[in-house]
Each structure stands twice: as structure tokens, then as C-alpha cells.
């Protein structure tokens, strides 16, 4: 058979690898800053762009989509051509993919700091960027499937299956969760409301963890771990079983993020059951990775790359054991809203994603530059620094989580809550300091790696392309008796392209469904009324400042939550919330029933100088809310959009909205004046106070537990 000559393009792998390292440092640096802000509020600097509420999404998005995202692409663009013995389908698409993705990241970081956010965790980017992400993802998909189609190797190695599964699912998740109604350039409202929005968000959120942080990285593991160890994967059969069972189970586990919330009980149980089952395939994958090193453990002792891989796979095992445990309701009662969740994701992010990436980069750079790693010793040092960093990061947070739980749920013998919320916050600040130091250590290791790899690059010469040869795939595969449609498709890349678009189209159609679901927003609690125009503006400020990053709006039905925050939350209270604002972490107290708890002047002073109202608080001040004015010209489109989404504002209310808004603002201004606080009614703080005072008041009538 004739051998065909072709070349692997190393340029694109190199670009993605450098981007991985660059964004890794940026994303982790922002994370370290945010971590220190929790201990030292002065680090918020008193300017809007650098407050925790805006930086935290920058950190999460940067490490997920910039660091891990570029890591995925590095792995795919390096391994896929070699696995299928064909160059990437299109160099142009590779380039568009690379630059498009970097541009999205850059724009994303800037817009998040400017306060443009949809407030849905890990999907905060606003609608123009959502569209850009979809387009670039499709470019990536075409390039990947094009390469697979013209492959010279019939068999698709297991890593490729992981890449395919990840691509398909991420596309679907992103489209469904990003369904939103734009009201202006860079501002939109989620199509779903309240409980439904929460459900869609965590269906997405959990699967973002599954199909962005886990499955593509399993593909990476199945390629780079055997390569680095110089021996085949322990059990190929197990890898196949692992892949298929994992992707079948993952998609159902999302509701475990909403245990004890207003989500229907059966949906919560469904999430729990599937989460427990997930333990099996996850550990199958972990063991498969570890057993690959059987008889090669002597190599682990000397090779830092294998050290990284071993700890990465171990962290994967720990995180995937912890995850199912946290899905048990009694465990979740402790872990939800606490620092436990943060520790859990960082075992995965730092250990699994971080260490796999580092191992891959240490392995890749010497090969791309035809040289040896500049310093194996430094790589080893990096390994130990980073491992210590993870330990120092995670243990204080676990400790803080249990401490929080015990203090939150402590009652005096007389049946009163024993601790104020502020006592609890203050008692865990030292743990936040330790955690931030752990993060700093981890980041220091990455900087050391960057320098080591820079020296490696300098000592070698870039191998732009690598020649390879392989026989072409026989055109007609030995057809099974019943001829398969796929062989027909395989020979026609364009057909496949069209088919993929049809698949995407089906996704689009299915997502139209929510449009028809709007009518279900009819309130189940008759007292719950739509927000007034001023409150709506206030709510958008709440979203813009990222308040949801520290404050929940969902009181769970526990005695210690009900006596602290008020009556537990009901699904019917959230029917007008586009997007929902339940949050996932309580660094500050729950706000679901904050309305009417304090006078307007309290909120005024608290937002200007939180320390003055709550000594010892770690909340940053928001002075700019007292200078910036609410843009009344957007009221009309906001009301219009909300009605379109099913919120029952009367017809033609847009016209009256601004005068209503002024009336309500004047009332608050007059209220503040009584307390000798003077401010004009168009300032953002007035709208925010209106929203805060409204929260949870509609359904407050129901008796609370004393």
C-alpha cells in the first residue's frame, strides 16, 4: 500500500500551550487577589472594577475557559493529528479558533470587570460574547470532525471519544443555558425565571464541570499519561466502559446543586441518585490511570512529569469521591453555601486540571523545541511547592466550613441562636488568610514553571512541523452485511458539516421550548407581585456588582436558617426573577428576607461604609453607587422585555414607569432626609435600597418559627 506523506503542525499546539501558561498565571493571580480580599477588605481598593463581586467571576472564567480551555485545545491540537495520522483539517480554522478564543477571553475579562454580567455562574459573559463563543466552538468542531473524517487510522483511540463527547455536550449546554433576551448591547435578561432558571443554570453548571473540566482532561490523561510513562493504558476495555458510562450518567446529576432549595423533591432525588452512581465510572478512570504505572513506580520517583500525573489522578479520585458524598442530603446540608464547596472544586481545579496541565506542558515543550527540559530539579521543586499549596489551600477551607456549620446551628439552652453571623465571619477570616497563602504558593510554582519552560525554549529550536507518513485508509471499509450510513457520510465532509448544523439546529429548536413555557410563570403565591421600575433597576445593580457571589437568596428549611434569616423560601416567590439570584456561597448572610429588616438609612450607611453598621465585616464599600445615576432611558426597554418574558406589567406601563420610579425614589430620599442623609433620587444607591427593602416582603406574612 502506498504511503502518504503529511506534516503535523506544531505551531498551533505551541500557541495554545503558551496561552495556557499565560492565562493560567493571570487567572490564578486574580484568584489570589480575590482570596486576600476576603481577609483584607481594603484590597478591594474602593473602586468598582476591582471589588470582589466583579473579580471573582473574572477568576472563575479565566481559570476554567482560559487556562483549562487552552489546555484542552493544546491537547487536542497536539494529540488528535497524531492519533488519527492526519494533519488538522484546516490551518485557517485552527488560527481562527486560536485568536477568536483569546479575543473572547480578553473581552470577557474586561466586560466582567466593567460589570457586564448575566449573573449565572461560569456563564456570566453577556449575550454578544455568548454568540462569539458559540461561533468559535463550531469552528473548533468543524476542524476536529474534519480531521477525524479524513483520518488514516480507522480506530478512534479512547482520547478522541472523550474529545468528541465533550464538544457535543458543551455546545448543547452553552446554547440552552445562554438563552436570554437582550435589552441593549451588553445587557440581557435570562429567558427562564426563578426555580426554572436555577435548574437550567445548575444543569449547565454541573455539566460544565463534567464536560469542560473533566471529560476533555480525561482524554488528555489517556494520551499523555501513557506517553509519559512509556507504557499502554492499564486496561483499554476499562477506558471504554469508563467513557460511555461516565457520559451517560453525568448529564443527570445537576440538581444536586439545589438540594433543600425550592426545587421539587423528586428532581433533587434524581440528581442525588445519579451523583452516587457517578462514583463508579469516575473511580474506574482513576484506577485505570494509576494502574498504568504498575511496574513503573520507580520512574515516578525520578520523573516530575509522572509525579504531576499521579497526584492529578489521585486528586480526581478524591474529588469524585467527595462529590457523590456531597450529593447526599445530610452532607449537603453542611457543605452547601459553605467553604467546603470551594475547597472541593479546588481539589479538582488545582489538583486534577492544574497538575495534568503542568505535566503535559513539561512533557510537550522539550518535544516542540527538540531539546531537554532546562531543569528537571526545578520541575520537581514546582511539584512540591504546588502540592504544599493545595494542602494549605484546602485544609483551612474544610476547617472553616465545619466551623461555620457548627456556629450557624448552635442554639443556647433557651433556644436562641448562639452566634451572630458577624461572629462566624470573623472567626473564619484567619482561615481565609491561610487559604490565600496556599494559593500564592501554588501560583509561585506556576511562575517557576513558566521560567523553566522559557529557558527550555531558549535552549532549543522550534520544530515547526513534523513529517509523518501513513497509508491512506482503504476507501471501502470491509462493510458489515447491513451497510452503514456512516461510511457514506465519512466520505463527504460537507455532508457531515450539514448534518452537524442540523444537530445544532435541533438544539436551537429545543431551546425555543422555554418560550412556550412563559405562561407557567403565573404566580402560585398571589401576594407575589412584579418588581417596581425602581426595584428592577436596583436588582440590575445588585447583579452588576456581583452581590450573588457572597449572598444567597434562598433560605433552606432548617431551624437554624429559619430563625436566623426568616421563613424558608418557596418556589412561588421567584417567578419574576430573571435571572434567579439564589447564589451558591454565603460569605455574607442570606438576603432573601432582608426587606424591611433595617431602615433605609442603615442600608445607605452600610453600602457607603459597611464597617460603620457591621463592625468586623469583610464586605467592601460601594462609594460609586452614590455618584452614578440610574439610566432612566432604559426603564422602558426593561419593562417591555420583562413583559415579553411573562411578567404581568399592565399594557402601556412603560409610559408610566419613569414617573412611578421617581415617586418611589422621592419617598426613599425623604426617608433618608429624616435621618439627615442627603442625596438626589436618581443615584444608584436609591434603586438598590428600593430592591433590598422589597426582597422577601411579599410572602413574609407566613408565620416564621420563633
Amino acid at each position, binding site marked *: 500500500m502506498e504511503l502518504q506523506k503529511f*506534516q503535523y503542525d506544531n505551531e498551533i499546539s505551541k500557541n495554545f500551550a503558551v496561552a495556557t501558561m499565560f492565562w493560567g498565571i493571570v487567572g490564578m493571580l486574580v484568584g489570589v487577589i480575590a482570596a486576600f480580599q476576603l481577609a483584607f477588605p481594603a484590597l478591594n481598593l474602593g473602586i468598582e472594577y476591582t471589588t470582589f463581586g466583579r473579580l471573582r467571576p473574572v477568576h472563575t472564567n479565566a481559570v476554567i475557559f482560559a487556562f483549562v480551555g487552552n489546555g484542552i485545545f493544546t491537547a487536542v491540537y497536539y494529540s488528535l493529528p*497524531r*492519533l488519527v*495520522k492526519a494533519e488538522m483539517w484546516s490551518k485557517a480554522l485552527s488560527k481562527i479558533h486560536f485568536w477568536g478564543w483569546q479575543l473572547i477571553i480578553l473581552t470577557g475579562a474586561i466586560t466582567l470587570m466593567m460589570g457586564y454580567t448575566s449573573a449565572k455562574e461560569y456563564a456570566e459573559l453577556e449575550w454578544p460574547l455568548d454568540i462569539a463563543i458559540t461561533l468559535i466552538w463550531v469552528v473548533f468542531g468543524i476542524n476536529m470532525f474534519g480531521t477525524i473524517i479524513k483520518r488514516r*487510522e480507522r*480506530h*478512534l*483511540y*479512547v482520547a478522541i*471519544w472523550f474529545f468528541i*463527547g465533550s464538544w*457535543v*455536550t458543551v455546545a*448543547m449546554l452553552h446554547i*440552552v443555558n445562554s438563552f436570554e433576551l437582550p435589552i441593549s448591547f451588553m445587557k440581557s435578561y435570562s429567558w*427562564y425565571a426563578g*426555580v*426554572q432558571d436555577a*435548574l*437550567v443554570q445548575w*444543569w449547565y453548571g454541573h455539566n460544565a464541570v463534567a464536560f469542560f473540566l473533566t471529560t476533555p482532561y480525561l482524554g488528555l490523561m489517556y*494520551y499523555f499519561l*501513557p*506517553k509519559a510513562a*512509556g*507504557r*499502554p*493504558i492499564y486496561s*483499554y*476495555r476499562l477506558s*471504554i466502559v469508563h467513557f*460511555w458510562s461516565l*457520559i*451517560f450518567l453525568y*448529564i*443527570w446529576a445537576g440538581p444536586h446543586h439545589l438540594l433543600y432549595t425550592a426545587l*421539587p423533591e423528586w*428532581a433533587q432525588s434524581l440528581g442525588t441518585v445519579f451523583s452516587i452512581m457517578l462514583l463508579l465510572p469516575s473511580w474506574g478512570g482513576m484506577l485505570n490511570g494509576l494502574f498504568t504505572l504498575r511496574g513503573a513506580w520507580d520512574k515516578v520517583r525520578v520523573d516530575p512529569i509522572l509525579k504531576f500525573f499521579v497526584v492529578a489522578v489521585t486528586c480526581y479520585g478524591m474529588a469524585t469521591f467527595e462529590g457523590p458524598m456531597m450529593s447526599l442530603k445530610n452532607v449537603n446540608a453542611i457543605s452547601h453555601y459553605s467553604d467546603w464547596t470551594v475547597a472541593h472544586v479546588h481539589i479538582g481545579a488545582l489538583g486534577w486540571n492544574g497538575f495534568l496541565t503542568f505535566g503535559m506542558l513539561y512533557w510537550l515543550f522539550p518535544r516542540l523545541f*527538540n531539546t531537554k527540559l532546562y531543569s528537571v530539579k526545578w520541575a520537581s521543586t514546582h511539584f512540591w511547592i504546588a502540592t504544599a499549596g493545595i494542602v494549605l489551600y484546602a485544609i483551612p477551607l474544610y476547617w472553616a466550613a465545619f466551623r461555620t456549620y457548627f456556629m450557624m446551628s448552635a442554639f443556647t439552652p433557651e433556644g436562641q441562636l448562639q452566634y451572630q453571623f458577624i461572629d462566624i465571619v470573623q472567626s473564619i477570616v484567619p482561615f481565609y488568610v491561610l487559604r490565600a497563602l496556599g494559593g500564592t504558593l501554588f501560583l509561585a510554582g506556576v511562575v517557576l514553571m513558566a521560567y523553566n519552560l522559557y529557558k527550555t525554549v531558549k535552549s532549543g*529550536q*522550534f*520544530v*515547526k*512541523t*513534523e*513529517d*509523518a*507518513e*501513513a497509508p491512506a485508509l482503504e476507501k471501502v471499509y470491509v462493510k*458489515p452485511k447491513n451497510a*452503514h450510513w*456512516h461510511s457514506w457520510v465519512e466520505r463527504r465532509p460537507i455532508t457531515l458539516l450539514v448534518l452537524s448544523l442540523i*444537530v445544532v439546529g435541533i438544539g436551537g429548536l*429545543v*431551546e425555543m*421550548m*422555554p418560550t412556550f*413555557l412563559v405562561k*407557567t410563570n403565573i404566580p402560585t403565591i398571589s401576594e407575589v407581585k412584579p418588581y417596581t421600575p425602581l426595584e428592577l433597576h436596583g436588582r440590575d445593580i445588585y447583579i452588576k456588582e456581583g452581590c450573588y457571589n457572597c449572598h444567597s437568596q434562598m433560605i433552606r428549611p432548617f431551624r437554624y436558617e429559619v430563625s436566623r434569616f426568616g421563613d424558608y423560601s418557596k*418556589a412561588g416567590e421567584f417567578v419574576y426573577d430573571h435571572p434567579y439570584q439564589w447564589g451558591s456561597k454565603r460569605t455574607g448572610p442570606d438576603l432573601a428576607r432582608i426587606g424591611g429588616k433595617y431602615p433605609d438609612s442603615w442600608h445607605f450607611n452600610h453600602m457607603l461604609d459597611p464597617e460603620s453598621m457591621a463592625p468586623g465585616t469583610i464586605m467592601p464599600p460601594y462609594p460609586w453607587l452614590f455618584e452614578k445615576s440610574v439610566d432612566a432611558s432604559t426603564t422602558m426597554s426593561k419593562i417591555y422585555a420583562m413583559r415579553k418574558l411573562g411578567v404581568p406589567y399592565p399594557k402601556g406601563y412603560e409610559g408610566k414607569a419613569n414617573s412611578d420610579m421617581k415617586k418611589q425614589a422621592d419617598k426613599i430620599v425623604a426617608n433618608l432626609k429624616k435621618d439627615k442623609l442627603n442625596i438626589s433620587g436618581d443615584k444608584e444607591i436609591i434603586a438598590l435600597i428600593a430592591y433590598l427593602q422589597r426582597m422577601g416582603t411579599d410572602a413574609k406574612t407566613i408565620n416564621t418559627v420563633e
Partner: protein
Amino acid sequence: MSVLVGLLVISMIISGGFLIAFLWSSKNGQFEDQFSSANRILFEEKIKTKNKN
């Protein structure tokens, strides 16, 4: 809670798609030879003839 229906349908489309992919791949003989598939990836360097700068 009608969005649940939507999510169930989408989830079923995804897992149904995976099921079809699985059935196709196993019928197609993708998983029959488990020895050489696992080993092949280790040896690709030998095919390479030379490096170009």
C-alpha cells in the same frame, strides 16, 4: 416546573445520541482490538522520518 420537561428532553437527546454513537462504534468494530489500540499511540515517533525547522 415545565422547564424540567425541556431539560429531560434535551438530556435524553444527548444521552440518546451517545447511545447511538456507542452502538455504532461497537458494531463498527471500534473496540474489538484492544491490545494494539492501546499500544499504537506509544510508537508513533518511529514513523517520523526527520525534523524540519
